[in-house]
């Protein structure tokens, strides 16, 4: 597999704020990535840098082997769907869909037609008059139908209802199956997308704190529940991600447990429960030292 994106020691400062802090990673070809993290973690800034929409303070970015800034041959292979895409005032959706093929060489007009039906997008209404969800659906349609070898979806579905989001996931998977490409999906709805992802990047305070295969990550934590003494004894020499205590009961999240350890826990009368990707990321991006010490 070859790398589509290579980033090394990338830093972006806005005056005194470091939005992206000495980040290095690669994105492999034809995989679906999740770029996850809290608000203000640096997700959008990172995507803007990767798509040549902003300049790095330090470090190196290679997209399809080249620097993306002002690089038309590279940028026409890239589609970046933003949460708050702005359109010219008098534009109607039909104008957007008519102009999209100018920018995307792999544009599939038939696929776009089908998506318009699926999302029930009114083509002839002025964009200013569209609902928030309809506005988001334009972005989703453009992002999917552009079939760009590298597609970014930055929180693409503000205001989209559950049905429309499901249509988005289904169409994305179907089309990805037939036309493999690299997709980077940034979202807060982690539980909804976790099964679609092959690889997960988690960014927190400008740093990449997780860069892992989604399957590996999924089994990488377990919550142990039981009496406080039993749980504390069991987790004594393990890395603890989170602790909760209620009276004499404890619920502690630890790393991966092997088969032998699971049996040991069962023998000790402890209950084990899986940790979803969303819970895991909440745990990893939410451990303030103070909270940790208070609970311990």
């Amino acid at each position: 597999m070859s790398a589509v994106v290579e980033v090394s020691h990338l830093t972006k400062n806005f005056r005194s704020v470091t939005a992206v802090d000495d980040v290095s990673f690669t994105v492999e070809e034809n995989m679906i990535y999740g770029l996850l993290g809290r608000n203000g973690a640096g997700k959008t800034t990172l995507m803007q840098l990767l798509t040549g929409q902003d300049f790095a303070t330090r470090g190196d970015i290679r997209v399809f082997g080249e620097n993306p800034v002002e690089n038309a041959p590279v940028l026409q292979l890239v589609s970046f769907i933003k949460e708050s895409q702005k359109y010219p005032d008098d534009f109607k959706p039909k104008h957007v869909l008519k102009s999209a093929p100018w920018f995307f060489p792999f544009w599939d007009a038939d696929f776009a037609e089908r998506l318009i039906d699926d999302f029930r997008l009114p083509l002839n209404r002025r964009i200013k008059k569209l609902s928030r969800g309809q506005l988001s659906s334009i972005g989703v349609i453009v992002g999917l139908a552009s079939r760009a070898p590298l597609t970014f979806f930055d929180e693409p579905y503000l205001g989209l209802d559950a049905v429309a989001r499901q249509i988005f996931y289904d169409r994305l998977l179907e089309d990805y199956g037939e036309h493999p490409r690299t997709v980077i999906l940034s979202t807060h709805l982690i539980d909804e997308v976790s099964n679609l992802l092959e690889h997960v990047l988690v960014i927190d305070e400008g740093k990449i704190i997780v860069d892992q295969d989604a399957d590996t990550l999924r089994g990488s934590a377990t919550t142990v529940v039981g009496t406080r003494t039993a749980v504390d004894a069991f987790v004594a020499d393990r890395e603890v991600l989170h602790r909760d205590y209620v009276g004499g009961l404890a619920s502690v999240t630890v790393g991966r447990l092997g088969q032998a350890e699971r049996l040991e826990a069962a023998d000790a009368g402890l209950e084990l429960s899986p940790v979803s990707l969303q819970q895991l990321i909440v745990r990893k991006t939410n451990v303030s030292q103070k909270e940790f010490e208070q609970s311990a």
Partner: protein
Amino acid sequence: MDDSRPIFVQIAELIENDIIGGALPEETQVPSTNDFAAFHRINPATAGKGVNLLVDEGILYKKRGIGMFVAEGARSRLVAKRRDQFQNEYVRPLVTEAGKLGITETQLVEMIREEGAE
């Protein structure tokens, strides 16, 4: 799909269940990884990993340019494997729990017989 185990393992088990249950007889074609992905709403690569797991075990085999097929003798081998699992995952905990509750071996056998008679 549940969160406690890797999804590709669960996909492999679903295919195994279909083979054991007879929905996928030997020498029939199994759905493509894209079909599995769309149906279960999972990443096609993950579905592919599940299928490959069974290829490695010789349960499925690939016909070049056509797709994946159920191998000859797959069902009986899966049944044997599941029997071992049954012993480990059901019978052993059953005996352990019975021991805790002071149920004797004879009583346990009698209980199982009663269940079977119903």
